[in-house]
């Protein structure tokens, strides 16, 4: 600990003189404590706001949360309305987005970090990826609407789950690429040299020694990116998710190409209605969304820890 009380201060007071230094210990420790207090306030203001938010929607949402609420479809009557179609839509989006964005993002990250030559073209791509991470999500929504819902309508079926998931995948790709590169960058070059010096090819070295220790970092980046994607509303509205669909998309090709809703869309729709009852079930839907997110994060953390242990 850096803190100390005044009785410990000063060998000078004990009779050991030092002429050229003026330690001002008391003052320095005071600054220590002030800085510590400021950091404490910063931490706990964030925790406080979060606790406030959570307790707020828990209080509003718990009374109307029931099994029926989860497995029912939409309704004009708030007491009969449920979230099954948007819940299935969200899970669908989650799976497809991860399945598309993870391999492409990690692949690009590995290529850029380990294999690409350092020339103007690579740097041009790097700058573009960094910029893409900063593009507002509504722009991705419009891009998705044009490319996935219109141009590739023969594959996606128009404004469908697939079009929405591909849009979200596009949205989080830059984040996954950057996270992958940063994780790989943290692996010391001596490991690569060691592998190559044994007569391993680049891929053998990366595959066996560089990628495994980087996986926890890659997973963390991917989890954060996916969490963001699943909470996104704007791009899904642009692509054409709707708040009122009577049936959940089926688990089939046709289901992929069907119209869809998602929890954030449903929540947004309900809170923008005048009736108080809809606000309450919106809070219930928020609880469900939070549970989906926490489950996903927990799964990813388990996978990450498994890799960490194996090192």
């Amino acid at each position, binding site marked *: 600990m850096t803190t100390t009380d005044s009785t410990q201060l000063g060998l000078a007071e004990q009779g050991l003189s030092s002429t050229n230094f003026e330690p001002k210990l008391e003052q320095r420790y005071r600054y220590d404590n002030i800085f510590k207090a400021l950091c404490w306030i910063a931490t706990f203001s964030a925790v406080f706001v979060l606790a406030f938010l959570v307790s707020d929607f828990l209080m509003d949402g718990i009374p109307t949360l029931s099994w029926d609420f989860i497995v029912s479809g939409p309704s004009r009557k708030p007491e009969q309305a449920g979230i099954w179609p948007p819940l299935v839509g969200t899970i669908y989006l989650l799976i497809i987005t991860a399945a598309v964005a993870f391999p492409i993002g990690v692949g690009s990250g590995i290529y850029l970090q380990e294999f690409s*030559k*350092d020339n103007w073209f690579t740097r041009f791509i790097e700058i573009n990826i960094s910029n893409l991470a900063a593009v507002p999500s509504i722009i991705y929504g419009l891009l998705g609407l044009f490319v996935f819902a219109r141009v590739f309508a023969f594959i996606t079926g128009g404004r469908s789950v697939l079009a929405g998931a591909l849009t979200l995948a596009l949205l989080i790709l830059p984040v996954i690429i950057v996270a992958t590169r940063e994780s790989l960058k943290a692996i*010391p070059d*001596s*490991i*690569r*040299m*060691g*592998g*190559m*010096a*044994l*007569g*391993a*090819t680049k891929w*053998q070295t990366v595959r*066996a*020694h560089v990628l*495994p*220790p980087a996986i926890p970092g890659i997973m963390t980046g991917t989890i954060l990116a996916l969490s963001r994607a699943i909470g996104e509303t704007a791009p899904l509205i642009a692509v054409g998710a709707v708040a009122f669909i009577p049936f959940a998309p089926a688990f089939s090709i046709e289901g992929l190409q069907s119209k869809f809703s998602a929890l954030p869309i449903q929540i947004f729709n309900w809170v923008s209605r005048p009736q108080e009852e809809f606000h309450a079930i919106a809070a219930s839907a928020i609880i469900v969304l939070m549970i989906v997110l926490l489950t996903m994060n927990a799964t990813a953390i388990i996978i990450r820890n498994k890799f960490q242990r194996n*090192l």
Partner: protein
Amino acid sequence: MQSQASPTAVGTQDVFKVENTGYYYGSNLAVRNVNLGIPGNKITSFIGPSGCGKSTVLRCFNRLNDLIPSAHIKGRITYHGVDIYAKEVDATELRRRIGMVFQKPNPFPKSIYENIAFGARINGYKGNIDELVEQSLRGAALWDEVKDKLKESGLSLSGGQQQRLCIARAIAIEPEVILMDEPCSALDPISTLRIEELMQELKEKYTIIIVTHNMQQASRVSDMTAFYNAEATDAGGKVGYLVEYDETTKIFQNPAQEATQEYVTGRFG
């Protein structure tokens, strides 16, 4: 590739020959005009002040410098008469024959067993890998210390043990030459002594080239010594060059060049 002469024979056949070789980063000359031969089953040490190019020359022997963009050599380095920088020579295949031990121990973040098995697997080793692991660890004088914990991470070992693990990893793929780039600079004196003793055993089977900052080490372990120095260029940079290359006893007791004399007696560097 079996053409090495008996280690005791006079005029042992050189394993490596470096002829008029210069080393460049882009258009900058880093090391100029090196000429030397590396005799088989001997320990050759490269000494000299920082920036004189001794590590650079060492890394030419297994073409590890290929990994640095813009770096290239002019001249010829031959391994048993084969130009290793020729187009037909595959650097990956070359590196299987020329092992390397680095300055800082760099075991893979894997088990002790896997550290050694990796090189064997990727190079298509046809024998029994369990036996190879034991034999390599014995060769590196590490077996007794780790035989009960082969599944533990290589990073759990002490620095000196890690470096011997790296030596075991290098000899597991049956190289002919082992390059050592200041292998003891991160180790304490006792670990250093163990590595030096190990080197004396290893030279029965392998040719060793060692870069060292420690002149006592060079005089203790090596048969041949090359002294490199660096001088300022007109452009403001530094260029390394080989000052003198001879038997170690001669370099340390009766060198031909004055600069060598000054360096080995500790008057500069």
